[in-house]
């Protein structure tokens, strides 16, 4: 398993090359550009499969990794040490799995886009952005250091900006894209601070060096602005996650991101953009742990999961429901990081990516079919849908499976991952009082998730069509390769056993005769920082020499815990799993009663809880707070004030005011000259000046006679001197 540039680099270089080539040819041959984008994506996926196979089937060790660096640029020697800025590849089990997920989802989204965007005027351009977006995400996954992560991180920000603003003739798209970029950039700036803090302390941003530094205590006793450096950098980097993964309080951009075309929403919400934030936090998990901010992370995750789920309750736009559900699920992942469920959080990242991609693509399929002939636009509002399962049965099945997955029904992937997070949260809550709140919020959010997802399903696919005309115009879904095949593939992977190795997940009910193989939970585990201290950096192209101290096959069923602890944990996990199954069914039941049976009226609830309902409608006033108060009142007001000070006061009065001083000085000196000098009687100065003035003026008269006179005078004076 000796990886060289030829094995890994194509994964990122192929989509990137597609981007570069397509950027130039897309205007001439859009069809070819689309084909190129898809083919390169497929090739990239194949390479990722190979990497995945090597990591998963050859070794079980969670510690094994491939690390290759080359110098990007260097600045010569600093205090005798060379200062190199490195780029390179860091590939371990987590990256391998994530790579597969990213390339796989991206490939499927590419294929679906050929269906969805077919009639768009800028069919080709869309694929240019898609290629770059995917390349950036792949680059981020492959990165070996934080700086390189930041580079791709920002590139993704740029791509999301372009894709959200894809329909640039709409004013709202402009607002949304700008909002997305700026909000994530708030996080990015802090991320950069964190990078700088680490970089300037240990002279490198490589993951390996950071782990080694944590293990060797290089961060100890250092402080930045009063807080320990390790905490400072952990918070800063986690703020990057908050921005990118739309956590509270920077969640405002993600719902607006649906201004982009639906496949791009799928890409942003599932595979790339938001996953990057969680991935970063997972990578930097040792740092977060060392910084002691896991409680904060858990609280933020819990609040996000709960808050976004509540907002999703009342959304009527199908994509908005999905957007808030994304935020909520991301909250789960962050909660998982906070409660130490490293493995489960990552697993939820993967499972969520699959079912959320499927949900968005299904929603896209629905929206694409519903064409309003009056406004010549697609319909996204659920109040105008209803009964669509007869028109598009295949989409319905796909979406239903995904809804089961996200709601955490047994046998589906969401159950496997989410319930392990909740189980760990419960475990933490039992041990520490402070962790009770996040766990409770997590469980309530699970209930709400099941409810609003089924609400969406029922409103869309069940009941009577509420907009008859629209319903009549909708064509019956016919199977097509680029619409249903992607959905089918994703649907298959919403099943739980792909991830857990057992049919139910959790390893609780073992399928008879099948060996117990929880590949996921054994492959991915917290990096053991102690192991990295021994490591010497390897240059690009050199062969691995780490085989001697990294065992390739290693499996620890208890995850490093003692037998008693493991037993306790298993026990709590059982309780958590049962609780969440009950909760999921309860959520389903409420939705059923409200929207199918119509036994309980949603209107009654909303009128009963009207203040809260209003708060939900305005998304807890975050948009108002940020845009109206902070930006419009605060920032713009201050800007205008400053600009007015700058040009209106400072420039006009202080800088140009020196002219007044000059004029005053002139007047004073003039007065002095006239009144003092003249009246005192020293008339000579002024008079001579005036005379001189007269003389000069006369000399320049151009009159020949005057010149002649001068000549005579000069002649005479010459004569006088002679005589």
């Amino acid at each position: 398993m000796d990886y060289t540039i030829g094995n890994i680099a194509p994964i990122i270089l192929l989509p990137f090359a597609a981007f570069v080539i397509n950027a130039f040819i897309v205007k001439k041959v859009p069809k070819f550009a689309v084909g190129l984008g898809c083919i390169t994506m497929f090739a990239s996926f194949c390479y990722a499969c190979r990497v995945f196979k090597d990591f998963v089937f050859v070794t079980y060790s969670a510690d094994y990794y491939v690390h290759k660096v080359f110098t990007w640029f260097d600045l010569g020697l600093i205090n005798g040490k060379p200062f190199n800025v490195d780029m390179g590849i860091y590939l371990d089990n987590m990256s391998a799995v994530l790579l597969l997920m990213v390339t796989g989802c991206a490939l499927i989204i590419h294929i679906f886009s050929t269906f969805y965007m077919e009639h768009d005027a800028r069919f080709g351009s869309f694929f240019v952005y898609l290629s770059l977006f995917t390349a950036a995400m792949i680059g981020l996954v492959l990165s070996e250091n934080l700086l390189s992560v930041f580079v791709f991180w920002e590139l993704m920000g740029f791509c999301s900006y372009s894709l959200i603003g894809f329909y640039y003739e709409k004013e709202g798209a402009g607002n949304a894209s700008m909002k997305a970029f700026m909000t994530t950039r708030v996080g990015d700036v802090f991320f950069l601070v964190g990078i700088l803090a680490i970089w300037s302390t240990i002279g490198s941003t490589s993951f390996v060096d950071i782990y080694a530094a944590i293990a060797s205590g290089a961060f100890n006793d250092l402080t930045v602005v009063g807080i320990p450096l390790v905490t400072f950098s952990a918070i800063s980097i986690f703020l990057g996650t908050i921005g990118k993964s739309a956590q509270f309080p920077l969640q405002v951009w993600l719902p607006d991101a649906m201004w982009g075309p639906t496949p791009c929403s799928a890409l942003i919400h599932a595979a790339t953009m938001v996953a990057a934030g969680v991935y970063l936090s997972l990578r930097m998990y040792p740092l977060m742990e060392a910084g002691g901010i896991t409680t904060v992370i858990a609280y933020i995750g819990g609040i996000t999961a709960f808050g976004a789920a509540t907002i999703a309750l009342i959304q009527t736009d199908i994509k908005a429901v999905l957007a808030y559900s994304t935020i909520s699920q991301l909250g789960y992942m962050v909660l998982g990081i906070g409660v130490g469920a490293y493995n489960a959080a990552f697993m939820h990242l993967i499972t969520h990516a699959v079912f959320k991609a499927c949900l968005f693509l299904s929603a896209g399929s629905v929206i694409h079919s519903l064409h309003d002939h009056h406004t010549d636009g697609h319909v996204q509002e659920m109040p105008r849908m209803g009964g669509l399962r007869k028109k598009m049965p295949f989409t319905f099945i796909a979406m239903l499976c995904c809804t089961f997955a996200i709601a955490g029904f047994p046998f589906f992937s969401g159950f496997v991952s989410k319930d392990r997070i909740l189980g760990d949260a419960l475990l933490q809550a039992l041990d520490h009082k402070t962790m009770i709140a996040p766990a409770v919020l997590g469980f309530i959010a699970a209930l709400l998730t099941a409810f609003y997802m089924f609400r969406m399903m029922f409103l869309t696919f069940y009941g009577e069509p509420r907009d008859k005309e629209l319903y009549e115009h909708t064509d019956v879904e016919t199977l097509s390769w680029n619409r249903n095949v992607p959905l089918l593939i994703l649907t298959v992977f919403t099943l739980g056993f792909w991830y857990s190795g057992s049919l139910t997940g959790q390893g609780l009910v073992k399928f008879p005769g099948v060996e117990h193989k929880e590949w996921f939970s054994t492959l991915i585990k917290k990096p053991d920082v102690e192991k990295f201290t021994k490591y010497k950096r390897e240059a690009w192209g050199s062969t691995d020499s780490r085989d001697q101290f990294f065992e390739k096959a290693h499996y620890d069923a208890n995850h490093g815990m003692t037998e008693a602890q493991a037993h306790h944990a298993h026990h709590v996990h059982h309780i958590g799993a049962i609780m969440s199954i009950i909760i999921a069914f309860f959520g389903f039941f409420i939705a059923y009663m409200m929207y199918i049976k119509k036994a309980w009226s949603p209107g009654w609830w909303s009128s009963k809880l009207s203040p809260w309902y209003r708060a939900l409608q305005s998304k807890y006033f975050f948009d108002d707070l940020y845009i109206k108060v902070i930006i419009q009142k605060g920032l713009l007001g201050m800007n205008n004030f400053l600009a007015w000070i700058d040009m209106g006061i400072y420039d006009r009065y202080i800088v140009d005011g020196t002219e007044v001083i000059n004029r005053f000085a002139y007047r004073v000196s003039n007065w002095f000259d006239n009144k003092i000098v003249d009246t005192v009687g020293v008339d000579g100065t002024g008079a001579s000046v005036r005379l001189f003035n007269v003389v000069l003026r006369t000399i320049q008269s151009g009159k020949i006679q005057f010149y002649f006179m001068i000549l005579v005078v000069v002649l005479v004076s010459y004569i006088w001197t002679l005589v």
Partner: protein
Amino acid sequence: MISLPSFLAISFILFVSGLVVMIAKKNIIAILLGVELILNSAALNFAAYTRFVNQNLDGHIMSLFIIIIAAAEAAVGLAIVIRFFQIRESIHIDDATQLLQ
């Protein structure tokens, strides 16, 4: 009675008159008249000196050349005046101030 100082006095008066004419008059032709007067005073001085001091004819030759040059000067000067008049419709000296510009 007829001695060198008396000739010099006459010449002096002619010279001063010429000078006054040149400066006081604003008419270009009048200024040329002043120039003629001054040239004459000079020529008269040559003739007088050569008669009273060294008694040869060199002064005469000099005076002769002065007359010749005066004639040439008058011809060219008047031509310029006429040309100037054609252009400016004036022979006022203050109109000839191209040197100022």
